[in-house]
């Protein structure tokens, strides 16, 4: 059976991270599981965790007044769920719900932030991993907003 340290350090998010840093981070980690339909978090609540998905599928959803929630992204094995823990005021920006049985590592956000604050090199390494994810999600959102598959506006054959 793998130790939690092994699981954390082998997760794509921490892959390649200095062993010393990785071990330090493991103190913030615990195994969690969510059944289909269970929420990892709700929009507006305190962003107290970073989730590293091991197996399963998590949907990010936004509540729209008067309409059913809109599912705008799904995250899968090896993905990171939850970015809001790194940015004040540390509140979730959307809902996250398990679509199927999902196993993940929950990293305590207070613990993570403390360790990153105490060791700027660790903080830099963590940010270096988070920023590409943030940028990727921003680009994806831009493309979704463009509604590129919709009917073209203006003259068309």
């Amino acid at each position: 059976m793998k130790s939690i340290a092994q699981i954390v350090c082998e997760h794509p998010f921490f892959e390649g991270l200095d062993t010393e840093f990785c071990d330090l981070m493991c103190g913030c980690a615990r195994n969690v599981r969510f059944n289909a339909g269970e929420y990892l978090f709700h929009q507006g609540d305190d962003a107290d965790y970073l989730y590293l998905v091991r197996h399963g599928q998590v949907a990010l959803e936004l509540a729209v007044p008067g309409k059913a929630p809109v599912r705008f992204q799904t995250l899968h094995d090896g993905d990171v769920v939850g970015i809001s823990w790194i940015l004040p005021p540390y509140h979730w920006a959307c809902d996250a719900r398990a679509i199927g049985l999902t196993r993940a590592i929950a990293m305590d956000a207070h613990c993570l932030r403390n360790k990153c604050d105490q060791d700027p090199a660790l903080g830099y390494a963590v940010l270096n991993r988070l920023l590409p994810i943030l940028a990727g999600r921003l680009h994806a959102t831009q493309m979704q907003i463009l509604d590129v598959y919709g009917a073209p506006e203006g003259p068309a054959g």
Partner: protein
Amino acid sequence: MTSTDFWLPEPVRVLRRQQELETTWTLELEPGKAGGRPCIPGQFNMLYMFGVGEVPISISGDTSLAESLVHTIRAVGPVSRQLAALQPMATVGLRGPFGVGWPMAAAEGSDLLLVAGGLGLAPLRPAIYHVLNNRERYGRVLLLYGTRSPEDILFHDQLEEWSKLPDFEVHITVDHAGSDWQGKVGVVPALVPTLAFDPEDTVAMVCGPEVMMRFTASALRGAGVEDDAIFLSMERNMKCALGHCGHCQFGATFICKDGPVLSFDRVRGLLSLKEF
């Protein structure tokens, strides 16, 4: 056949019509003279609604079948709306086939990564038929399909059939969905880094809106696929289909006669040029 034949629309009849999506129909046409000219996956025909106008429409059927020409049309403008509404036995003008298609011969022996966005699945479908008709010539096939919502999935039943084939993976993602959708949600380029494939032995064929193709090409490069192994089907404004009118000029390239399928190394620097 004289060279002037390509300028003259030939009247052909609609054989069958099938609704695919709310605004999208597939028409099977009599092959006409074009039936005597072998089509290549990725090529297009000019379809003419007499008295209304002419539009380029990719071939979306099996190009090995000579008995009909299949086109999938989204009703978005005056010509395509009337084309899509045509009933069996109605007459339409046909010129073609035109253009350079997918590099099916050059891709033999390689794995194929096919990436389609929205209606972009239609021009890729002949390539898939070609692979299935010549299965031993190709390696693994990975088809990534992204579209707007679960209701907008084109050729839904066929995608399901293909996903059951050996060495044929189908990955579907939608931009938005309700909470009843159990599949993936997100943009199609984001699927590329999640796949296990050998970039050195893969030919990628991409078709969809230009923005989607730009991001997809970038993701493919990031995964290690060489620029000359990435092929995009460009769909800029084509009018004459013969490289004479200049409407579809793209740098030194004319999409209608040099494309619509072009390798990424040829168009990489031009993708930022806006179409007016």
